[in-house]
């Protein structure tokens, strides 16, 4: 089989037997712990306060039993107290870094992410195996993605043998994207929710299926996608969509062609799921909080970091043949809303919202003052070109939500573009916001 014909970019790693993968993780963790204790003021303080002597950590079992977890709030508290912008995580002098990227900042000021790298930035490089799985090969073309806050993509594409097409794919550029697709015939692009909505609108003027027909696949990040929209993209436009998510702020986790969960690269991250608020592992397959440990970060590794992502984890070999675990993102810790004693699940609201033609894109937010509230308040984005009677739409939505969720909501209807305009990130659309 020729190099480009193989399914996996790095078959030896991607299909590594799990005992071997576990041994690799253990080796790396046993290097990480003493180095972090030696060079990171944050870990030294945290572990000392927990009575941990790093010399006691001699295995992965010791690691998960002894090393305490921490959250983003712990880092912010350390930074506020000490004035250290890196919150005590940095393990090398700052002038030895290659870059300092930052988190999306959807829940506050962005957190600094110090990086050391050679050819291309870590976040793009983390997706190399995933783009290969989509089918991208040297000689293909790709539209550069819209967001840069986690690193530039052109060097990564070029080193993958892919020619970057430098076209603005930001919000409002739908027509230019369609024209660029028709002109350059790229094999890949990253889609965002606003772009998808723009393409829907352009469907009356362009043959979107034809425009997107050169794609081997498209990626979609940062938020779940509703069933209706997924159906449109896959069945009407003929595009295979690969959804990806954060791997606990250590990298990304992507769907493979099986579309059965998101692959975590376990040579790069040690993933655990713990019961929220407790240091107790969940059984494999049960919902828990993703606790991540960076295995390849030489600058400021996260070690047993509680990500706030609620996931299910499965370590069975995937249908694609890879042995690395897959995650399914269920939601965020703190997103649970209890209305008058009844738990409201985002996915149920979603099903109700996308059941109406005018709101089939599933763009909505829960507006609340606290996790426990008396009334369910929803802000729902409607498509103006499909909407003629707002009071009637509100009544139908109320009935659909009441039927699906068991709670009658108060609904604020806004044009979907206005709703998207309130988003503060290229990557994430917040589903639960403060009133």
């Amino acid at each position, binding site marked *: 089989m020729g*190099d480009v014909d193989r399914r996996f*970019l*790095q078959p030896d*790693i991607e299909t590594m037997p799990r005992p071997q993968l576990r041994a690799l993780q253990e080796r790396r963790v046993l290097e990480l712990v003493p180095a972090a204790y030696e060079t990171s003021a944050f870990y030294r303080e945290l572990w000392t306060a927990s009575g941990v002597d790093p010399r006691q950590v001699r295995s992965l079992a010791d690691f998960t039993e002894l090393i305490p977890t921490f959250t983003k709030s712990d880092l912010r508290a350390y930074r506020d107290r000490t004035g250290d*912008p890196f919150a005590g995580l940095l393990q090398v002098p*700052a*002038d030895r870094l*290659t*870059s*300092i*990227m*930052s988190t999306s*900042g959807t829940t506050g*000021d*962005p957190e*600094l992410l110090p990086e050391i790298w050679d*050819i*291309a930035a870590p976040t793009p*490089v*983390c997706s*190399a*195996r995933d783009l290969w799985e989509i089918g991208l090969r*040297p*000689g293909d*073309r790709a539209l*550069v993605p*819209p*967001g*840069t*806050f*986690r*690193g*530039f*993509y*052109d*060097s*990564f*594409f*070029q*080193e*993958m*043998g*892919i*020619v*970057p*097409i*430098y*076209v*603005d794919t*930001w919000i409002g550029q739908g027509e*230019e994207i369609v024209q*660029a697709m028709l*002109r*350059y015939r790229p094999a890949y692009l990253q889609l965002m929710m606003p772009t998808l909505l723009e393409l829907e609108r352009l469907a009356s003027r362009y043959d979107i299926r034809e425009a997107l027909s050169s794609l081997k696949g498209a990626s979609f990040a940062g938020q779940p996608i509703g069933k209706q929209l997924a159906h449109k993209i896959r069945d009407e436009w003929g595009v295979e969509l690969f959804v990806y998510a954060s791997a606990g702020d250590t990298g990304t986790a992507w769907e493979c062609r099986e579309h059965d969960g998101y692959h975590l690269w376990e040579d*790069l991250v040690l993933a655990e799921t713990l019961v929220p608020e407790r240091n107790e592992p969940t059984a494999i397959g049960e919902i828990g909080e993703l606790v991540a440990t960076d295995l*390849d970060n030489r600058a400021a590794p996260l070690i047993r970091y509680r990500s706030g992502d609620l996931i299910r984890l499965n370590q069975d070999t995937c249908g694609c043949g890879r042995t690395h675990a897959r995650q399914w993102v269920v939601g965020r810790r703190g997103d649970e809303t209890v209305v008058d004693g009844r738990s409201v699940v985002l996915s149920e609201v979603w099903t109700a919202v996308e059941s109406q033609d005018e709101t089939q894109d599933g763009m909505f937010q829960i507006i609340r003052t606290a996790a426990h509230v008396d009334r369910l308040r929803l802000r729902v984005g409607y498509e103006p070109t499909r909407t003629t009677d707002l009071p009637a739409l509100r009544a139908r939505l109320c009935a659909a939500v009441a039927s699906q969720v068991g709670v009658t909501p108060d609904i604020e209807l806004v044009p979907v573009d206005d709703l998207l305009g309130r*988003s*503060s*990130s*290229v990557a994430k659309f917040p589903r639960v916001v403060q009133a």
Partner: protein
Amino acid sequence: MITAMSGTRAEVFGLGRFQRGGELVDFEIGWPEFARDVAWARRMLAAWRVAAGDHVVLTTPNWEGPWASPLIHALRELGTVHSNAEPYTWDARRTSTFLRWLPVRAIIGMSEEAAVALVADASNVALLAKVPLLWARPEALGVLRDAGVRPAGFAKLGPALGLECPEKSGLHLDPAEWRVGPGLTLSTVGERAYRAVEVPLGVDGHLDQSPCACGLPGARVRLD
């Protein structure tokens, strides 16, 4: 990172588009001219005394790679440390965060909307005023100057990039690659995959043929 690349580099640097009047013009960038653009970017950075270990904030999106990537590669060759922020209003907070927490030596490509958002907060203005090199787009220059900040020009001129040196007396372009005519049109001089012939720059200004005190060669485009 442990992850390997494919082992085959792209055949060309990339394919870009620039605005000429109301139309989009496609242009290809080859590896040889990209290498020369990196070398010119290093000369511009040297004029500003940007050096290893300096912290630089880049606010150029991915799609502006044909103009910004030579600078980014030059910064990496120099051994600087860089951070990225989006050029949009809502991401001005990220630039502000970098300014507060890091010793920022340079900001590259500041947009008008980011400038407006940043100068609305007096603490940002004080921080921006301390940044030795603030390369801002033409529309952002007035906003920053009105706030008391001293930016230098950064402008996409057709397929080329114009940058001001510390003299701030007009935008330099590499004269070995580009020739600007008196009517502010751009033509290719170097051996490039895309050959521009008298492309209107689309900016208001004039050509200054006098030697620049910084010592860099070539004419400069002074913006009105």
